[in-house]
C-alpha cells in the first residue's frame, strides 16, 4: 500500500496540506500554457467520467445517415446514424481509463524496480535488470493479438494491464540510472549512516527526488498508450467490444469510406482532434511538473 500511496504524490500532497495546494495553484497559473494544459486535461477527465451519464445507451437515428452538423446532431451522424458527438464522448472513458491504467502500472513497476535495483545494486540489481531486459524484449503487439483470442479487451483493466506489464522496461532502466547517481549524494550516505531503514530511504528520500522525472515519464507514456490502443483498434487487431475512438477511426476509414466521401470527414476528424488535444494538454502541463516537486523552483518568482 505504501508503494501505491507514494506513487501519486501530487494528489495526496495537494489534498492534505494547504501550502502544497497553494504551490500547485502558483505553479499552474505562472504561465498561461500550463493553465490551458490543465483545463484540457480536466475537460477530458470530466468527459471520461461523466460523459456516458449524459447519453446513456447509444441511440441510433436511422433517419439521419451521414447527416451534417445540425442543432440536433452537433457533429453530425455516422454511417449508421449514430450521433458523432455522443460516440466521441462515450468513447473517451475507455481510451482514457486504459491509458491511465497502463501508465499507472508502468510507473508502479518501472519506478519500484528501478529504485530498488539502483539502490541495492549487486545481485538484486542484476536479477531485476535481467527481468527488465526480458520485459523489454517482449513483442507487445503480437502478444496483444494472441491475447485477443482469449480476452475480448472489453474492460479497460485488461487492456491497461497488458499494455502496462509490457511497457515498464524503459522506465525501470531510466529510473535505475537516476537512482544510481542519486545514491552517491551526501544525503543518502547520511541516511545510510544514520541507520534509517531501506524502505524509508527508497520511498522517502529517493522517490521525492525522482518524482518529477517519474511523473513526466508517466504523462508521456499516457500519450504513447493512447496512441497504441487507438492504433490497435484502428488496425482491427483486437475485437470491437466497446465504443472508443480507435473503433470510430477504423469504421470511418474502412466502413465509412472517409477517404473518399467528404461527408464522413467529421466522423474521422472528431476522434483525431480529441487525441491531438489531449496530447497538447499533457505536453503543456508537463512544463509545470518540475516546479510542483522542486521546492526551490516552487518559490522562485
Amino acid at each position, binding site marked *: 500500500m505504501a508503494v501505491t500511496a507514494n506513487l501519486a504524490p501530487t494528489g495526496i500532497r495537494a489534498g492534505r496540506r494547504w501550502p502544497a495546494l497553494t504551490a500547485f495553484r502558483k505553479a499552474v497559473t505562472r504561465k498561461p500554457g500550463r493553465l490551458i494544459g490543465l483545463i484540457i486535461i480536466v475537460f477530458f477527465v470530466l468527459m471520461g467520467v461523466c460523459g456516458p451519464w449524459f447519453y446513456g445507451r447509444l441511440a441510433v437515428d436511422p433517419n439521419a445517415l451521414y447527416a451534417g452538423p445540425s442543432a440536433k446532431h452537433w457533429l453530425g451522424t455516422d454511417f449508421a446514424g449514430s450521433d458523432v458527438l455522443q460516440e466521441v464522448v462515450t468513447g473517451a472513458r475507455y481510451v482514457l481509463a486504459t491509458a491511465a491504467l497502463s501508465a499507472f502500472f508502468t510507473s508502479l513497476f518501472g519506478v519500484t524496480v528501478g529504485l530498488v535495483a539502483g539502490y541495492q545494486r549487486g545481485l538484486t540489481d542484476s536479477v531485476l535488470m535481467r527481468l527488465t531486459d526480458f520485459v523489454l524484449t517482449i513483442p507487445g503487439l503480437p502478444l496483444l493479438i494472441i491475447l485477443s483470442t482469449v480476452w475480448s479487451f472489453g474492460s479497460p483493466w485488461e487492456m491497461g494491464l497488458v499494455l502496462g506489464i509490457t511497457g515498464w522496461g524503459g522506465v525501470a532502466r531510466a529510473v535505475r540510472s537516476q537512482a544510481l547517481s542519486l545514491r552517491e549524494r551526501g544525503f543518502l550516505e547520511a541516511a545510510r549512516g*544514520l*541507520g534509517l531503514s531501506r524502505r524509508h530511504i527508497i520511498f522517502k528520500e529517493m522517490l521525492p527526488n525522482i518524482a518529477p522525472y517519474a511523473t513526466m515519464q508517466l504523462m508521456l507514456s499516457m500519450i504513447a498508450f493512447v496512441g497504441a490502443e487507438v492504433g490497435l483498434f484502428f488496425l482491427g487487431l483486437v475485437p470491437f467490444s466497446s465504443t472508443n475512438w480507435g473503433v470510430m477511426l477504423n469504421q470511418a476509414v474502412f466502413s465509412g469510406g472517409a477517404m473518399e466521401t467528404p461527408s464522413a470527414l467529421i466522423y474521422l476528424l472528431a476522434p483525431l482532434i480529441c487525441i491531438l488535444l489531449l496530447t497538447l494538454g499533457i505536453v503543456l502541463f508537463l512544463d509545470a511538473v518540475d516546479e510542483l516537486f522542486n521546492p*526551490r523552483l516552487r518559490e522562485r518568482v
Partner: protein
Amino acid sequence: MIEARGITRTYQTYGAFTGARTVHALRGVDFTLPDGGAVSFIGESGCGKTTLGKILTGLESFDGGELVVDGVELSGLKPHQRAKYFRRIQMIHQDPYSALNPTRTIASILGDPLRMRAKETGADATTRRERAAELLTLVGLEPDAVLPKYPHQLSGGQRQRVVVARALTVDPTVLIADEAVSMIDVSMRLGILSLLRDLRARLGISLVFITHDVATARYVGDDGELHVIYRGEVVERGLTDEVILAPVHPYTQCLLSAVPIMRGLEEPGPDRTAPTAALDERAVTPGCLFQPRCPFAQDQCAEKHPVLVPLGDGAGDGSGAGDGAGFAGGEASEHLHACFYPEARRVVGVEVGAASA
C-alpha cells in the same frame, strides 16, 4: 573509544586497455581515539582521507587490519551486528549543499532519525519534537525559524549546522568530520569549528577531523593527535602543535608550507618548501612513497621503504626492525615519522609582533 590497527583498503580497477590495476587507498593506518578526544588527519586530495572516513562510518569496507569500537572488534561481526556500533559513529559531510535532501523540510530531515531513535528509547512524539528543537538550539540555530524551511533557504553555514544536528539525533559518541568546513565561507568556518569543539567539551563526543587545511585542524583538536597521511600511509604523527611547529617529514613540511601567509601579519617560515612534482597516484615506488616529489630525497629513499618510528630513535636503515615499532607502548604523545632523514624545519608563517592591534 575507537582503535584502528593496520587498516588497509585496496581497489581493483579493470581498464579495457590498461588491464587490472591495484589502487592502494589505505596501506595500514593505526590510530587510537580516546573518549572525548580528537584525532586529525591531513593530506592532499587523493591520499585516502575520504576512504578512511567512510570506513569508520561503515559506508565502506576494509580488507585488512582491525577496527575496535568500544572494545569490540568489528571485522569478526556480521553486517547487522556491526550496524549497532557504526551507528555511534556519525559523519559530517563535506558538502552541506548535497548532504541535505532538497525535497524535505528541516523538520522531517531531523524527524525521521529521531523517530527511529525513539523506537529504541521509547520516547513519545512530544519528546521527539522537543529533542529536535533542543538539537537545533545546541548547534546555534533558532528552532522555530529553521524547522519549517527547506535546505535551499539556509546559508551554507546554517546547513552545516543542520547536518551536525542530524548526526546528533542518534546520540553518537564519535563524529567524523570530513572536510566539514572546506565548502563554507571562510567567515563562517570558525563558527562551525568552535561548535565542534564545543560538542567535545559539552557532550564528551570524540572527533575525527579530516582535512587538507592544517590551520582548521588546530581549532578543533589542538590537544589531540595530528596524523599526516600520504597515499594511504601515515608518514608523520604527533601532538598537533608539535607537528605544526616542528615537522620532520618533508611531506608534512610541504603541506604546511602551502598554507597561505597572511602578509602584513605573518612572515613566511625560513625553511618554506614545495614538492618537486605533482601527485601521481600510479607511480611505482618501492622505496619511500614521497621520494619522487621530495625536495630532500637521497639515494636510499628510492630503494627502501621507511616505516613509522619515534623521533630520535633514528630511522637509520629502516630495516625490518621497524616492524610495528611505532605502535609499541601505545603512548599517544609520541612524535613519530617515516623518513630516513628527519630534520625539523620551520616552514609555517611567523607572526609579526602584535602589529594589527
